[in-house]
């Protein structure tokens, strides 16, 4: 029998394909209405912290060094009011086998795929996760396919994404490079159907749980080193898995650090637009992913995403492209650490937030990423300049994504800008109920939404009131 391979035909088989490719029946966690049992999903399909550590340490993942950025701290204190300027630390996740924290997510996903008897793994990603899956698959002796959104309709690709394709291929993976558009998911589904490989989604319970070890390590390391937990932890935020996993690991360690999300402000750029694709200079950690995934986690490639950042987020700040490039150069020049720019989104934010904090407090940036040809600030800025982006010094707050990149004239102009958390929370509530327009909202749904937004039933009720749902 010939299967219907049209876009709508393949999409209509989505649930069936996904079930075969992940081995999770999400139905058992569903309530039939808005709520679902998130903790049960994490418990029954994930791994214990101890199991994850064993899996990761056996593949050289984790136990990455924590570095104190003394000179960058010194610079921030020169700009801060007297007595202000927290100590800035970074967890050097670039030291993982594939060059980023994504190795933690991939280690678990690939281990799980192998345990279930899959012959190969497939991941849809243009980012560091591709290299991470390829690296882990190489170690496990599994086949690996990475599907990337890479080129615009003129065949021009972001240097950073092209470098990631090279790295995946170097690690033995097959790489499919696609032009711009959400139908990448269509090709992804046809591949799963054709190969019967495992869907190494970024958003499965084991993928997210893989990051818990990072949060746990942080708490343990700081207790040993400084005798206390970090006061603030800043996570670069895109799909939300980094923040969710880190926060869950900290909670498992009993830490109560404040969790801050940071994204590059790409306001006004449409992520699925062919003509705007190469106008951005960040391929991840930006608001184009960060905001929609925070307010609607289940837009991901699994029925219920395990990355639910608003459950754990205390604060969400944005920084501009020019600020992140500036801080990346400062990290190299003051600390002797050359790292990829995407991981430095949180560092730019931390540099600003540290100046609000007392000198004896600790702020931690929980990841770095590898750098090299294509994946370095130099080629990304060169690419931007070739694409007509106006690159200059000035006030980064004047930057217009897609038109300009403005380096701060002076580091005192680096300012993390707070996004209204309640607006995000209300947006999540609105999106959640929009999925079930005819359902009468129950008490357990209210409870679920309160947990989803880290608020109270009263907050959810008043938000629903605002959209005439109660």
């Amino acid at each position, binding site marked *: 029998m010939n299967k219907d391979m049209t*876009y709508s035909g393949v999409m209509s088989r989505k649930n069936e394909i996904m079930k075969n490719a992940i081995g999770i029946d999400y139905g058992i966690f569903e309530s039939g209405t808005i709520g679902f049992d998130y903790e049960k999903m994490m418990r029954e399909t994930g791994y214990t912290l101890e199991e994850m550590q064993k899996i990761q340490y056996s593949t050289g993942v984790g136990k990455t060094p924590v570095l104190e950025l003394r000179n960058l701290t*010194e*610079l921030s204190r*020169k700009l801060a009011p007297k007595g202000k300027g927290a100590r800035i630390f970074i967890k050097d996740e670039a030291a993982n086998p594939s060059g980023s924290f994504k190795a933690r997510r991939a280690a678990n996903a690939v281990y799980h795929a192998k345990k279930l008897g899959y012959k*190969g793994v497939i991941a849809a990603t243009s980012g560091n996760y591709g290299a991470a899956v390829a690296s882990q698959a190489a170690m496990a002796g599994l*086949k*690996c*396919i990475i599907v990337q959104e*890479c*080129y615009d*309709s003129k*065949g021009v690709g972001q*240097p950073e994404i*092209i470098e990631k394709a*090279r790295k995946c*291929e170097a690690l*033995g*993976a*097959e*790489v*499919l*490079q*696609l*032009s*711009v*558009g*959400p*139908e*990448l998911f*269509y*090709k992804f589904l046809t591949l799963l159907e*054709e*190969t019967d490989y495992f869907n190494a989604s970024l958003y499965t319970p084991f993928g997210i749980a893989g990051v818990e070890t990072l949060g746990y390590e942080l708490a343990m390391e700081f207790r040993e080193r400084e005798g206390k937990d970090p006061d603030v932890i800043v996570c670069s935020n895109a799909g939300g898995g980094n923040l969710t996993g880190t926060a869950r690991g900290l909670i498992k360690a009993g830490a109560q650090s404040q969790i801050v999300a940071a994204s590059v402000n790409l306001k006004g750029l*449409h992520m*699925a*637009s*062919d*003509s705007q694709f190469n106008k951005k200079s960040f391929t991840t950690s930006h608001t184009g992913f960060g905001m929609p995934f925070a307010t609607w986690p289940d837009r991901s490639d699994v029925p219920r995403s395990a990355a639910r950042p608003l459950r754990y987020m205390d604060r969400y700040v944005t920084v501009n492209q020019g600020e992140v490039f*500036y801080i990346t*150069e*400062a990290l*190299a*020049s*003051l600390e002797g650490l050359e790292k990829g720019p995407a991981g430095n989104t949180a560092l730019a934010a931390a540099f600003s937030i540290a100046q609000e904090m007392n000198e004896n407090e600790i702020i931690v940036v929980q990841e770095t990423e590898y750098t090299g*040809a*294509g994946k*370095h*600030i*130099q*080629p*990304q*800025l*060169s*690419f931007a*300049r*070739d694409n007509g982006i106006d*690159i200059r*010094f000035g006030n980064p707050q004047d930057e217009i994504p897609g038109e300009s990149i403005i*380096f701060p004239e002076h*580091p005192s102009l680096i300012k993390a800008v707070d996004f209204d958390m309640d607006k995000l929370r209300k947006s999540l509530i609105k999106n959640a109920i929009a999925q079930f327009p005819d359902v009468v909202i129950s008490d357990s749904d209210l409870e679920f939404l309160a947990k989803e937004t880290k608020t109270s039933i009263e907050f959810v009720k008043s938000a629903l009131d605002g959209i005439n749902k109660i």
Partner: protein
Amino acid sequence: MAKKNDWVLIHKIILSPNERAPQVPEDTKQVPLEMWVKGYLKDNEAEIGDEVTIITRTKREEIGKLLEVNPTYNHGFGKFIPELLKISEQVREITFGGDLDE
């Protein structure tokens, strides 16, 4: 000319403009969804531009237009951005003060 088992890059249209998903923006709807993939040439021989079959690293077959034999990575560090040097000088100046050599 490419020979059987050469490592090659091919190009293929996955969805033509009229097959694109309803939710894509207007500019994206005007163009096809394209794919580039590498593999070993299955045909005995082929010229650039021919429609060929390849065997990928996971032993799958893909059909598309032959673009390149032994496809090369051309990405590098781009053109020099002098502003980065200015940033480097500035942060050292503010942090350590004065001329570093003094």
